[in-house]
């Protein structure tokens, strides 16, 4: 039969000689290989102390954004929920009452905003769909949890810290990516 590729090698089926039967030489060669590996750089990353840098376009947990005065940007238009291919987002809208202008940017806001992180595929379509720049994906991923309900993130989990009350936490949550984006804009 003709060989399929030029790389095919016939198998050597000669009976082993006495020296080969002792396996000593091949064992020695193998041991030299493992000895070399002993001094190689380790591939392991000691995780909690040392973290692998994420790609600049990494799509992690969602963040509900606020504007410069600390007002929620979301108007509960539902475009993100509509764009979501995994149907992970649900929300309930409410009307802004007089006196709440410092809390919500527009007349309508999301009274309830939930993302099921088990359903979410982190595609980022919600971020693209949002007309108000209210939702974007951060550089962290969902921490593990023992229960499913722990993965349904409500508004208190998603909202970014208020830049007026807590600017340090706010900028930490904004992270590198958003800062870079704003610089480039």
């Amino acid at each position, binding site marked *: 039969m003709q060989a399929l590729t030029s790389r095919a090698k016939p198998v050597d089926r000669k009976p082993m000689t006495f020296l080969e039967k002792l396996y000593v030489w091949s064992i020695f060669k193998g041991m030299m290989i493992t000895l070399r*590996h*002993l001094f190689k750089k380790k591939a392991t990353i000691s995780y909690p102390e040392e973290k692998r840098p994420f790609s600049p376009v990494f799509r992690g947990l969602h963040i509900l954004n606020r504007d410069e005065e600390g007002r929620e940007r979301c108007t509960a238009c539902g475009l993100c929920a509509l764009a979501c291919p995994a149907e992970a987002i649900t929300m309930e809208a409410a009307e802004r009452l007089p006196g709440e202008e410092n809390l919500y940017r527009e007349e309508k806001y999301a009274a309830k905003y939930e993302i099921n992180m088990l359903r979410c595929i982190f595609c980022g379509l919600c971020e693209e769909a949002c007309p108000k720049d209210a939702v974007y994906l951060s550089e962290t991923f969902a921490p593990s949890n023992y229960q499913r309900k722990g993965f349904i993130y409500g508004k208190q989990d998603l909202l970014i810290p208020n830049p007026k009350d807590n600017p340090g936490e706010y900028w930490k949550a904004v992270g590198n990516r958003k800062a870079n984006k704003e610089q480039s804009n």
Partner: protein
Amino acid sequence: MHSALLAIDLFLVIEKLVLIVGIVSISLVIAMYETYAERKVAAFIQDRRGPNRAGPFGILQPLADGLKLFMKEEIIPNTSNRFLFILGPCLAMLAAMMTSAVIPWGGTLNVFGREVNLQIADINIGILYVFGVVSMGVYGIMIGGWASNNKFSLMAALRGASQVISYELPMGLSLIALLMLTGSLKMSEIVGQQIDSWYNVLYQPLGFFIFLVCAFAECNRTPFDLPEAENELNFGYHQEYSSMKLGFYLFAEYINMFISSVVMATLFWGGYDIPFVNDASLTGMGNWLVLLQGLSLFIKVAIFIFVFMWVRWTIPRFRYDQLMNLGWKALIPLSLVNMIVTAAIVLLKTNGWKF
């Protein structure tokens, strides 16, 4: 005269007791840290880091492992033979610990004007004693495998027994060649000869190699770990064991490894002699010299233990027929040839090189 013979030398008893306790605890601690070293060596060979969470560099890992084994539920199978089931690991441990009695761990210490020999029993058949005790170790495997009342365990035990017995033959034959050179079975005398002249490994390289291979087989280490071949026999002879009884079996393996390294270092690599140094010129150092010599023995042993692990994580397990072929068709003829050649040379030498 008779009363002097019968009187018990209390100091001798205390001295020997201290020695026994010391050596037993040292070999236990070494066996403990062998488990750690094994995991580290395995990890480094596989480009990993190994245990590094318990204490600095994972130093406390053996303690954590031991604690885990103690906390586990102890299961004795219903259909097993209870007495033998418990006897198995005991025997394995006992046989592993007993060998260290005849090893010369160092020269003679001078403690408060009293000469203390760093050897528990300097008997004149030291090597025979080692061999007798080491071959007792197979009873631990046999009894454990039989008492478990499990066919895999039994098969593993049979394999273990036949393997250990097959490899004891070339081991003994390679040793005969060595004994023809030394002319003594006394461990301390063999070491003494090596301190005065060259190491035995220079006269008996092939004998040492055969001894090394057989030591791997005797310790049931890879590539000869057929008795616990996980993929064929699940877990081998200790499959039904749990908790510390399993721990004892695993521990006995590590102690065996330590002891066979010590025996190899003693017989072939000069025992407690410090290499490249004339020990006789250093007698002025007194006790420090003795301690240095002990340290040099332990360094040799550490190198051997590393070789054991290095081989384990390099070579895959032999098939059973390959194992038997290697033992009976390669190692025994080789060691026989080695023995005959040595015998001829020794004969010529004693005849004054006259043919």
